[in-house]
């Protein structure tokens, strides 16, 4: 009797959150799906009827599509490689005994708390500006011609900015994972004469595999969606127009809602493919 009572109470307590999220997911998504099958130009004639899959075809056959896929892959891929590789090294280092460990940790984590518009603008102006930026001063000091970072090396610049923002996240999670490693196992291996590199390869890395997977999946979802970093630096020019930015431009700048919505559906599908893998891992952890 009591359990039945508490069950219905439980359902009632869950209802607000479930209903809100259901609405938040279904209403806009249905609208995007609806628009994606229409020729819909709010500034130029509004709703001009159903067009079937035309928007979907036009989105992927437009000249901007493949370059945007390429830019997205380069940015996401490079940032993942950089943050995971340096994240593992940095986590290993921070796990060692040292003086002032707490302070170093704080220094390393700090960039994660900087809002994206600030980090992008600080890098763009104070570091990458070809006249007054610190990099320009540095290059001139060594007698080299300063680089116009955001136009000549635009993708590299975005990768630097975004990696700087996400390295703390990777480091922190990998450090947490390393600290949960049984130190006796490592000591035993050391006593048996296993050199550092094989201790890393056979004990630490396998232990970190799950944490690395989680870092990769979560970062992929966030990196696919980066927006502000491009919005305040290149506005999508010089080959930095990612898939997210292309859709944004279609929808809000050129007000071609049908076309942009078709792109939006592609983005949703893409994110879901990544999300499925992530949820499997998280779900497994729930059972444990």
């Amino acid at each position, binding site marked *: 009797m009591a359990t039945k009572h508490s069950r219905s109470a439980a359902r009632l307590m869950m209802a607000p959150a479930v209903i*809100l*999220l259901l609405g938040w997911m279904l209403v*806009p998504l249905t609208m995007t799906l609806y628009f994606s099958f229409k020729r819909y130009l709010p500034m130029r004639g509004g709703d001009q009827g159903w067009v079937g899959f035309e928007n979907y075809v036009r989105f992927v056959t437009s000249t901007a599509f493949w370059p945007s896929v390429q830019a997205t892959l380069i940015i996401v891929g490079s940032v993942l490689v950089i943050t995971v590789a340096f994240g593992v090294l940095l986590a290993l280092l921070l796990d060692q005994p040292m003086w002032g460990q707490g302070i170093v940790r704080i*220094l390393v984590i700090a960039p994660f708390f900087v809002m994206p518009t600030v980090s992008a603008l600080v890098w763009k102006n104070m570091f990458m500006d070809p006249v007054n930026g610190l990099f320009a001063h540095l290059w001139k000091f060594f007698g080299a011609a300063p680089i116009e970072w955001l136009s000549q090396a635009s993708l590299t610049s975005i990768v630097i900015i975004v990696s*700087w923002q996400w390295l703390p996240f990777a480091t922190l999670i990998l450090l947490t994972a390393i600290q949960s490693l049984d130190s006796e196992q490592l000591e035993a291996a050391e006593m048996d004469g296993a050199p550092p590199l094989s201790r890393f390869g056979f004990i630490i890395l396998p232990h970190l595999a799950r944490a690395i997977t989680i870092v990769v999946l979560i970062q992929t979802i966030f990196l696919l969606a980066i927006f502000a970093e491009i919005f*305040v630096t290149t506005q999508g020019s010089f080959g930095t127009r990612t898939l997210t930015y292309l859709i944004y431009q279609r929808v809000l700048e050129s007000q071609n809602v049908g076309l942009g919505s078709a792109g939006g559906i592609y983005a949703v599908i893409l994110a879901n493919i990544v999300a499925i893998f992530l949820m499997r891992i998280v779900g497994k952890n729930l059972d444990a």
Partner: protein
Amino acid sequence: MARAVTQKRKMINTALAWTIGLLIFFPILWTILTSFKTEATAIADPPVFLFFDWTLENYSVVQERSNYMQFLWNSIIIAGGSTILGVIIAVPAAWSMAFVPSRRTKDILLWMLSTKMLPAVGVLYPIYLLFIELGLLDTRVGLTVVLMLINLPIIVWMLYTYFREIPGEILEAARMDGAGLREEILYVLTPMAVPGIASTLLLNFILAWNEAFWTLNLTAAKAAPLTAFIASYSSPEGLFYAKLSAASTMAIAPILILGWFSQKQLVRGLTFGAVK
């Protein structure tokens, strides 16, 4: 002998870690330092590091010219409001999932997580349109609701992982002593859940403060928070490094301080309990 080696290794570790740590922190440090320079010193070649005439002028200029306080206030209202609202809605949900789990609890949790994965740009126009229809564009209320919704899955998850660590035996003991559901929640569970709720509030305040997709796309002048205020420096006039730095320092300082307190929760909150 062994001790000497360890001591030497510790010194190398310390030197290396501090060098890398300072290198990573340098852009923030440089921004803070530049905010105290004059515009001319800010672009000096070679760059001036510490020995310049420190000035607070930029801070007053930023405040006078752009009414910084209004943006700050918007950020506080939007980030704070969305977080508190989210926690109020999420506490009962996380509670019932942790203490009265059913066969579907896991599916519901995973489904909630999946809504967080929805790319914002995919629903940009519908939300934009709804905001126009409902008169919510460039209002703090509208933005507060949207940020609450995008962070709600994380809030539910964080609270759920905290609540699950509260032993069920305590509840049984309370029930044996004659506590009803209300007493149980008020006097037994709440005190134990306070640290978890506090951490959740903290992390989600930070996430909402730094959110820069919806805040940039759904605001113009009235409701714009600090993210949008800083973005206005992307098309500058004249010398502006020192002013940009002052504005940036003011925008990130409160969060840096809060962030340092939330390192542990960050891992738990953003990995959905998968890494602890």
